[in-house]
């Protein structure tokens, strides 16, 4: 049984403000994004009977439903970091298709920037000191994403000849998209030379290889196919879904140059029954330039190891023949911590033709892939419009 064409995204939006939003907390952002996405669809909150979320305490959906005043028939707190929301779409499709719910609300909200300065009790790191990373990685100064992704990228550079210039191409092309998006945080011109001469964060990553840290929230609304045309906007069909995870710790990574996108991507493309050449616009996670590069390889858009040359010559920039991360990405648009929601919202906007100066002409088919953890867990969606 396939989930192809069984559900559609009928509402998608973000918080009113993204970037640096010191007067909002994460749960305020969840709620405001939910209101905006429901308004986008023209659905009343009272119709929501399923809630999918993570990142607000240990019982995220329970907390959010209390806050919003929703008594759900179905909830899902799947937490796979930045890829959670793509995976929520798959789970929502399964639940709706099984008749367990009708209107699924998927929400995100984080204040990655402003939380750094807040007082009050802080949640722990979330690590159990007996787990592998706490015993065998953190004592050596490895923990934050720059410290782990950098070592994966270095191995890719060593095995396949990927260069700093290849990575810089992605930062520059993504910035060009951001320059077309008034909501993007970073819109100044950026050149390859700027990237290569910028300071190191974690060699081989320059600062422009690393994503932003911002405040932002987003939400989408998913309904079954039979209801999809009732709402204000044209439906964005879920044609293919896939999820996979391969490791949590760096030492547990089966191959440092791979990601589970090879599994989630294969599943999504097979379900959708489309080929890579059919895809009009690609939204992939860019926590680092390298994340996007390796994901494009793992999804099968090019041969393994050839992501650098494949994405070079500003091929992914506006006007290029491989439009990628058209909102400006986590590198230049926004990145509150778990960026996957924004890949999803941008894909919906592109497929609806709502993107103004950055609209990819005639975009009908999108590939979305999000990555969570340390290249640990991915969700892939193939989305399409009529």
């Amino acid at each position, binding site marked *: 049984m396939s989930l192809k064409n069984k559900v559609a995204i009928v509402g998608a939006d973000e918080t009113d403000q993204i970037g640096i939003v010191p007067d909002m907390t994460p749960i305020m952002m969840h709620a405001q994004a939910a209101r905006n996405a429901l308004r986008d669809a023209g659905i009343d909150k009272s119709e929501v009977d399923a809630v999918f979320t993570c990142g607000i305490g240990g019982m995220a959906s329970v907390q959010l439903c209390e806050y919003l005043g929703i008594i759900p028939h179905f909830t899902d707190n799947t937490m796979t970091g930045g890829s959670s929301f793509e995976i929520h779409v798959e789970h929502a499709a399964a639940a709706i298709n099984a008749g367990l719910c009708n209107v699924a609300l998927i929400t995100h909200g984080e204040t990655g920037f402003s939380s750094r300065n807040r007082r009050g009790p802080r949640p*722990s790191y979330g690590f159990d000191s*007996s787990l592998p990373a706490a015993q*065998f990685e*953190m004592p050596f100064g490895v923990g934050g994403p720059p410290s782990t992704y*950098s070592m994966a990228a270095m*191995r890719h550079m060593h095995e396949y000849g990927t260069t700093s210039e290849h990575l810089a191409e992605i930062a520059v092309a993504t910035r060009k998209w951001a320059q077309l998006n008034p909501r993007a945080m970073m819109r100044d011109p950026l050149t390859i030379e700027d990237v290569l001469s910028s300071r190191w964060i*974690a060699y*081989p990553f320059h600062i422009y290889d690393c994503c932003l840290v911002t405040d932002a929230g987003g939400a989408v609304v998913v309904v079954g196919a039979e209801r999809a045309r009732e709402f204000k906007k044209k439906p964005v069909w879920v044609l293919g879904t896939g999820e996979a995870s391969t490791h949590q710790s760096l030492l547990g990574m089966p191959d440092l140059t791979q990601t589970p996108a090879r599994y989630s991507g294969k599943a999504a493309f097979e379900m959708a029954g489309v080929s890579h050449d059919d895809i009009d616009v690609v939204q992939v996670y860019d926590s680092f330039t390298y994340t996007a590069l390796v994901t494009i390889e793992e999804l099968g858009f090019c041969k393994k190891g050839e992501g650098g040359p494949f994405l070079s010559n500003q091929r992914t920039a506006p006007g290029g023949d491989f439009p990628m991360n058209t909102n400006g990405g986590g590198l230049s648009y926004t990145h509150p911590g778990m960026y996957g929601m924004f890949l999803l919202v941008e894909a919906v906007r592109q497929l609806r033709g709502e993107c103004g100066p950055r609209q990819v002409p005639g975009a009908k088919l999108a590939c979305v892939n999000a990555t969570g953890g340390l290249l640990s867990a991915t969700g892939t969606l193939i989305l399409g419009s009529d």
Partner: protein
Amino acid sequence: MRRVRRRQFFDATPPSRYVEVHVAEYAKPLPWPSPETRPFWDACKRHALSLPYCRSCEAFFFYPRQFCPRCFSWDIEWRDCSGRGVIYTFAIQYRPQMPGFTPPYVTAIVQLDEGPRLLTNIVGIEPSPETIRCDMPVEVTWEDVNEEITLPLFRPVGAEAAAS
């Protein structure tokens, strides 16, 4: 030397463990040897790199588990390794990613001659993109942190012992 009881950095569970550390000298996170990893850390105290070995696969694996992650055999033993290997990958951290670390410092995955890979720091070498390469031969060197914990660090083969 001033000694205090100090809660370990990552403290969620198991319930509060206290270890003796010399706070003035050592502020980095310390491992908590769990029942299945205790032989590794005990061996480190005697400056030996002892890793779990699967008697079914006839191969080492790491990190330590009660069973072999390849074949799910629970027939494992501990064997000492040579302490020699090569840098499988590395990065130079220009921002402290954990408390107590002074950048720049080198994080690396070392592939031991016997096969398994460990995450570690490379010491005894200038932390610079010009000096460090993948496949560089390295050997273990020991940092005795306290009575319970000795950390295995690695240095280029032939370098002076210079644990930071």
